């Protein structure tokens, strides 16, 4: 095996151990690097910021355990901004595990303690509703015929916030966070296309390229782009959390990946050129 080929033949255990160390070290000793806020996150923030106090927002938790490390911080930061603005929030879950994410998120937001919000008046959680786009269409179309009770089993007639909703026009904004392309497209189809409601969406970074056309066309007013979007939101709302901490870990791990890419290419071209030299 030539020196060039040896360079590309590091055992996977070594590669993985290096990656693990690159994650652990900055978690213990953060670098504290500055955040540069992207335009898509700024547009989400400004869209919510422009809503008058008391506006009703429909907020969808469209992710489960798989998306929680990335979209959990997005949800916390986004809800901090909404509660700070004294918006009223109808929270629902279109993902099967979404209702299990709700208590984890609210434990960090603490709306009653931090903002004096009252459940039932300022926010309500409807729980998981099956059907994805069918659920979206049902809730937006006529929430009173679709939903009979909230997540805790309280009849909706006893929930003041839901009595304020008379139709889709009652919602000033639809905000969703999801790991599913179907849910992400679904809200654009059901809220924007059907009822012309403003929509902001947050999803995993790897979904952003395929959903960005909606943002470019004006169907989405803002995007939270995975952990980067979450860090931007934490920075803009001045509620530092797990996402800002994660940026240091990302710095280390992605630098390691870049180094591996460079090593891989050096070894590939090195062996290719030395083989050509050998043939001459």
């Amino acid at each position, binding site marked *: 095996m030539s020196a060039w080929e040896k360079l590309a033949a590091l055992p996977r255990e070594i590669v993985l151990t290096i990656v693990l160390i690159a994650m652990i070290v900055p*978690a213990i000793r953060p670098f504290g690097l500055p955040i540069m806020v992207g335009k898509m996150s700024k547009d989400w923030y400004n869209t919510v910021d422009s809503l008058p106090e008391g506006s009703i927002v429909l907020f969808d938790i469209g992710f489960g355990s798989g998306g929680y490390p*990335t979209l959990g911080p997005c949800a916390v930061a986004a809800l901090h901004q909404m509660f700070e603005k004294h918006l009223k929030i109808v929270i629902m879950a279109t993902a099967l595990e979404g209702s299990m994410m709700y208590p984890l998120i609210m434990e960090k937001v603490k709306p009653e303690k931090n903002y004096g919000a009252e459940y039932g008046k300022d926010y309500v959680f409807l729980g998981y509703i099956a059907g994805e786009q069918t659920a979206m269409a049902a809730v937006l179309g006529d929430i009173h015929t679709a939903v*009979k009770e909230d997540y805790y089993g309280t009849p909706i007639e006893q929930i003041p916030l839901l009595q304020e909703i008379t139709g889709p026009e009652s919602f000033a904004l639809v905000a969703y966070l999801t790991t599913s392309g179907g849910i992400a*497209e679904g809200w654009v189809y059901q809220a*924007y296309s059907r009822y012309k409601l403003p929509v902001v969406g947050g999803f*995993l970074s790897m979904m952003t*390229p395929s959903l960005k056309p909606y943002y470019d066309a*004006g169907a989405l007013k803002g995007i939270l782009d995975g952990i980067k979007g979450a860090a931007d939101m934490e920075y803009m709302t001045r509620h530092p959390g*797990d996402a800002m901490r994660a940026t240091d870990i990302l710095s280390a*791990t992605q630098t390691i990946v870049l180094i591996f890419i460079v090593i891989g290419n050096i070894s590939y071209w090195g062996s290719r050129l030395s083989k050509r030299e050998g043939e001459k």
Partner: protein
Amino acid sequence: MVSTDVGVWIAAFFTIVATSYAFRDNIFFRFAEYTFIGAAAGHAIVMGVKNIILYGWTHIAGGEPSYWIPIILGILIYTRYHPKYYWIYRYPIAFLVGIGVGISIRGAIHADFIKQIAATAKPLIATTPLGTLNNIIVFVGTVTALTHFIFTYEGIHKGAAGWIPKIGRWMMLAAFGGAFGNTIMTRFSMYQGRIIFLLRDWLGIIH
């Protein structure tokens, strides 16, 4: 300080064991995998039952007997396991497919087609030279990428106009490279959450 919560220790065990697959397949990972599959299926049943009661039975109890129809349709889904009457499950599936397709077509025509074409059909000349260049690149990218997928007319990929879909291919490859870069960030950002859990919530090394 190391956590004394049993739930945190169980979560830490499953995190470490599920990670071990990256190094080597092993029986502990299989144990974690089977645990997850069973738990996920159980969770689906719990949420299904809750939705049936909240969105079906509550309506019936409230004086809307028409909701027996979706309940019967739902039960008929399970006839697919019957060797002779399996075809009955086509009824609820036809209902679900009809609703799903009808609901999504209307949005797709508007958001995926009309709005995208409207966004493309804008003036190319912007207020700054960089803006104009950007608009041209977006326009060229859209048109050439679309052209790449025209297979009904063979001549478009060969001959004089063959360079158009070729540019589309390069634009898409460049776009996929950007998407790959984002995918790297996504996966690492997901795992960092587990690292923070292990170091903070389990071992108490960080706060």
